């Protein structure tokens, strides 16, 4: 009797702790949603209460007056092209490192591992110089290339660990059938690697969507801004009220959050990809 009572109370305690942590995770986004449906006056009066008469005015003003609609278009365009390019680069290189034998493999792969750690700020100043010499400042091509350069080493590492696990017989069979390099890659290897490809796609897309330093550096014309850059700069430029800022936050987070709900398994796989062993 007492042991079962004790077991029940520990269970209850565990649930309470977990619920507290869950609430801590959820509250910021709930606060943003709640505030975004209020007008400025109502928010100032009471920051905690639910909106008495929910309004979408903040969203309208954020999308049109503060040009978030434009920023969203920019972000979707750059991130989707960037992610595609990134997936190609990572799967090409991952296939080479994971399946092919060549001189210098270890050296170059170690370089990849080494370079993936550095923060944007270690390279920002010189990246800016190089980009301006190549005429890449204030262009989408520029931000896409630099995003790919910055995120691809980690993606390559993940793809490599995946390709290492695929038996080489598959490749040899394809060769005996006379498949050339790109047929080996596109009709044999990439279909096998599809789940991991989806995972690095999500990692890359999220990374680019939420990236700030390079966007600040490369996209200085207002009409080129990304959503995250918009949020980071708007407060200083306009002194946004909290309800307006909340609406902006939700506009920016809407697509990543929807992706998370749909592709949860890929996302959770991505969190562990390439680094869980033993």
């Amino acid at each position, binding site marked *: 009797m007492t042991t079962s009572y004790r077991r029940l109370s520990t269970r209850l305690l565990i649930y309470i702790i977990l619920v507290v942590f869950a609430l801590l995770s959820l509250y*910021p986004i709930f606060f943003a949603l709640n505030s975004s449906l209020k007008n400025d006056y109502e928010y100032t009066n009471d920051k905690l209460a639910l909106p008495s008469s929910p309004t979408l005015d903040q969203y309208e003003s954020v999308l049109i007056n503060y040009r978030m609609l434009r920023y969203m278009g920019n972000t979707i365009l750059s991130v989707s092209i960037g992610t595609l390019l990134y997936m190609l680069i990572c799967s090409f290189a991952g296939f080479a490192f994971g399946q092919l034998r060549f001189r210098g493999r270890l050296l170059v792969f170690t370089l990849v591992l080494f370079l993936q750690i550095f923060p944007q700020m270690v*390279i920002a100043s010189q990246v800016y110089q190089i980009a301006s010499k190549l005429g890449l400042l204030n262009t989408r091509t520029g931000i896409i290339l630099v995003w790919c*350069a910055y995120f691809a080493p980690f993606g390559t590492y993940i793809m490599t660990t995946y390709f290492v696990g695929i038996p080489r017989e598959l490749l040899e069979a394809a060769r005996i059938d006379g498949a050339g390099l790109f047929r080996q890659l596109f009709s044999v290897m990439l279909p096998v690697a599809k789940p991991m490809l989806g995972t690095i796609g999500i990692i890359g897309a999220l990374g680019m969507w939420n990236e700030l330093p390079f966007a600040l550096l490369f996209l200085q014309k207002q009409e080129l801004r990304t959503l995250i850059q918009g949020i980071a700069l708007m407060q200083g430029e306009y002194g946004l009220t909290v309800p307006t800022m909340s609406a902006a936050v939700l506009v*920016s987070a809407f697509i990543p959050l929807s992706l998370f709900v749909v592709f949860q398994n890929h996302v959770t796989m991505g969190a562990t990809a390439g680094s869980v062993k033993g």
Partner: protein
Amino acid sequence: MNGNRKKSLTSEGRDAWILILPLLVLMIVFILIPVMSNFYYSMTKWKGIGTPEFIGLRNYSKLLTDERFFSALKTMGTLILYIPLGVLLPLIIAAILRDGLKGWKFFRSILFLPNILGAVILGTLFSVLFSQVGPLIQFLSSIGVEDAVRINLLGKSRTAIQILSLLFVVWLRLGFGCIYFLAAMGGIDNSYYDAAKIDGAGWWQTFFRVTVPSVSFAIQFFTVLAFIEVFARMYSMIFSLTGGGPGYATYTLEFGVYRIGFIGFQRGYASAWAVVLFLFCAIIALVQIRLIRKSEAA
């Protein structure tokens, strides 16, 4: 026969280089050359335009008298002190979830949610939540805390650093840590747990004697990742949460490079900061590479 094999190897080598070429070019142009040229620029006086003027090691001696530099080191020291908590907490939660609690997948996803929002949004939201005119102060006043306004969490150096550490090192990494450790624990042989049960071991004993040793690689790797986050992934959060303030209280090396180089236009001096940051990151990278090699050999 032998010649044929050799031929296929060389063509494989050519194929491999073709495939890694895009990655290699991007990496060299946008990471390797910039990283290396920092060493040169750190010995110059340079505003970002015009010709850099060579001044030897003067930027480095300036570092040693710069209050901001020591403030950055202090902030990072504080952040590192939070790493043990940031590792232990998700490890314990993962061990609890592993016991097959109802709804664990749901909890796992909820805890991961902040990672989707990203540092800029989180920093912006928390700067509002903790502000002098924010909901936290309103809540505290409403339950009768006197002078709640004077708490000013982000406005005082001490509390600002603690808040930043708790948010970035503990809270934000919780969801990722749970998923990560749960995956690692999935590989533990159940017979260990059965044996522990037969020995009459309690939950904590089982945790420290079975779970922790079994996932020791994951713990080491996760700790290295935490160091990477602290040294190399904090800029966006600081930018949107505290802007480095109050004063220089929440400067890190990364944030210092930005403020000095891009707001203060002392690109040469900022490069000296970047070199120091490079050295820290290089050490962490080498530790990480060794760890990966060790796991491959095992």
